[in-house]
């Protein structure tokens, strides 16, 4: 009586024959069975290239018993997350009889996925005909999940950086807007103060009141020019004394409308912190104002302005040659008082030399580089 052979029976028989071919003391067969590396052999001469033999380690890895595996094609390990392109490469290698090493997502019997570093190699007989395929597996899920963890951590870090950058950009925008707003209000207030002084000066019939108001206006306007010249963009809170001084002296001297005034300047950029701007501006304003009072506005003359660094010092020199006229002593005393206060504020020294019609004032102070 001949039993009809099922395909699974055929695979089992092929496996048995393979084992029977090996002498029981064959150390290679023993190693194959005992190794901790999951391994299997398939028979391409049977329909659908079934597993005909697999070791204990392979059963442990996949959760299938040897009985469940023999006679089945290896695709039973595939699942929904398995990359179809990888499967196609594997199939092509087998049909072309080539070795292939490929990473593939497989599934255990209980449905749990694992990353399989699969190696498949044909086994040929003495004539070179392919008899079997040998496959070994390596579960590298841990490595893969560490990679994913790293990628996730990096992603979170990147998100945090993006968020912080957005916060900082917004904070900077708000700060810039605030600086501009405050700057705008200060400018408007200074012009409003000047307008109030001018309005009252225009309305008064008392000459002394008018002169006093214009004297205050003159100092307020020096501060207005400071506010206009403060560097509030790239270099917040800094001030170029030379630029200010030149603007101030040209404004004052041009407005005198005298063709007999010779103005010369020798100014070099000196940038100081904004806190020093106002007293410095008032000093230059007083020095020029003094020359104007002593005769520049009446009979013309020469006036020279020098602003420069000198041996770690910062030097302002105003020299004039005028036909002296009588100066209101109160006004002159007030001007000197202003100069004295500003010099003390800056710890600056002032030296004033008068020789005939020529007056020279040198103010020096320390500046940090």
């Amino acid at each position, binding site marked *: 009586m001949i039993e009809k052979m099922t395909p699974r029976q055929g695979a089992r028989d092929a496996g048995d024959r393979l084992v029977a071919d090996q002498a029981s003391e064959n150390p290679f067969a023993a190693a194959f069975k005992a190794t901790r590396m999951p391994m299997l052999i398939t028979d391409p001469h049977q329909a659908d290239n079934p597993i005909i033999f697999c070791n204990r380690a392979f059963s442990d890895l996949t959760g299938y018993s040897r009985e469940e595996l023999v006679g089945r094609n290896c695709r039973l390990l595939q699942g929904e997350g398995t990359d179809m392109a990888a499967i196609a490469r594997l199939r092509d290698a087998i049909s072309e009889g080539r070795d292939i090493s490929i990473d593939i997502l497989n599934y255990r019997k209980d449905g749990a996925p694992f990353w399989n570093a699969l190696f498949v190699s044909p086994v040929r007989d003495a004539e070179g005909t392919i008899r079997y395929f040998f496959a070994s597996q390596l579960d590298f899920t841990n490595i893969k999940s560490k990679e994913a963890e790293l990628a996730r951590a990096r992603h979170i870090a990147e998100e945090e950086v993006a968020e912080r950058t957005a916060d900082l950009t917004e904070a900077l925008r708000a700060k810039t807007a605030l600086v501009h707003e405050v700057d705008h209000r200060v400018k408007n207030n200074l012009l409003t103060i000047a307008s109030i002084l001018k309005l009252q000066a225009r309305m008064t019939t008392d000459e002394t009141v008018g002169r006093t108001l214009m004297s205050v206006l003159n100092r307020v*306007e020096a501060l207005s020019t400071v506010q*206009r010249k403060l560097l509030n963009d790239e270099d917040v809170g800094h001030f170029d004394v030379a630029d200010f001084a030149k603007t101030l002296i040209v404004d004052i001297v041009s407005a005198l409308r005298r063709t007999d005034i010779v103005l010369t300047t020798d100014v070099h950029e000196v940038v100081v912190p904004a806190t020093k701007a106002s007293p410095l501006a008032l000093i230059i304003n007083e020095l020029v104002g003094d020359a104007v009072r002593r005769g520049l506005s009446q009979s013309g003359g020469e006036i*020279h302005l020098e602003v420069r660094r000198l041996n770690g010092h910062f030097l302002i020199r105003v020299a004039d*040659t005028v036909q002296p006229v009588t100066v209101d002593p109160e006004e002159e005393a007030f001007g000197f008082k202003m100069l004295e206060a500003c010099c003390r504020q800056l710890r600056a020294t002032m030296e004033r030399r008068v020789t005939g019609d020529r007056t020279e004032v040198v103010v020096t102070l320390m500046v940090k580089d």
Partner: protein
Amino acid sequence: MKVLIVEDEILLAMELESEVEAAGHEIVGMAADSREAIALVEAAEPEFAFVDIHLLDGPTGIAVGQSLALREIPYVFVSGNVKRIPNDFAGALGAIEKPYTMNGLQNALAFIESYVNGHQPVLSPPPSLLLSPALGTFSGDAVAEPSADRP
């Protein structure tokens, strides 16, 4: 010159008015928002205008300037934030930065007058007037243009 003042701070507008009048000019209109200003550009036929950029109805001074430029009426911006002025100055002659000084304003006005009168300007632009790049550079003898020589 017949001058239009566009400024939303009334006190500043009043003081500017008296400065301009003291220099011998006639004020033909004052406006605090762009609607008033543009109506005056048409009705008052100014020969020159001072235009603040931020008006009662927002940063509309630029639009006022454009309507002046369209009629070829010379004008300057008067603003605390000259960086807000477009690169082409919207056809303005230049800008006077706030807070201007009395001297600075008078010097700017003298230069503007010589320019508007159509003569080759005899004055150099004063530091108080930031010229539009479209005007190029002026050469002329200043009342008190400083030289780099020592006395």
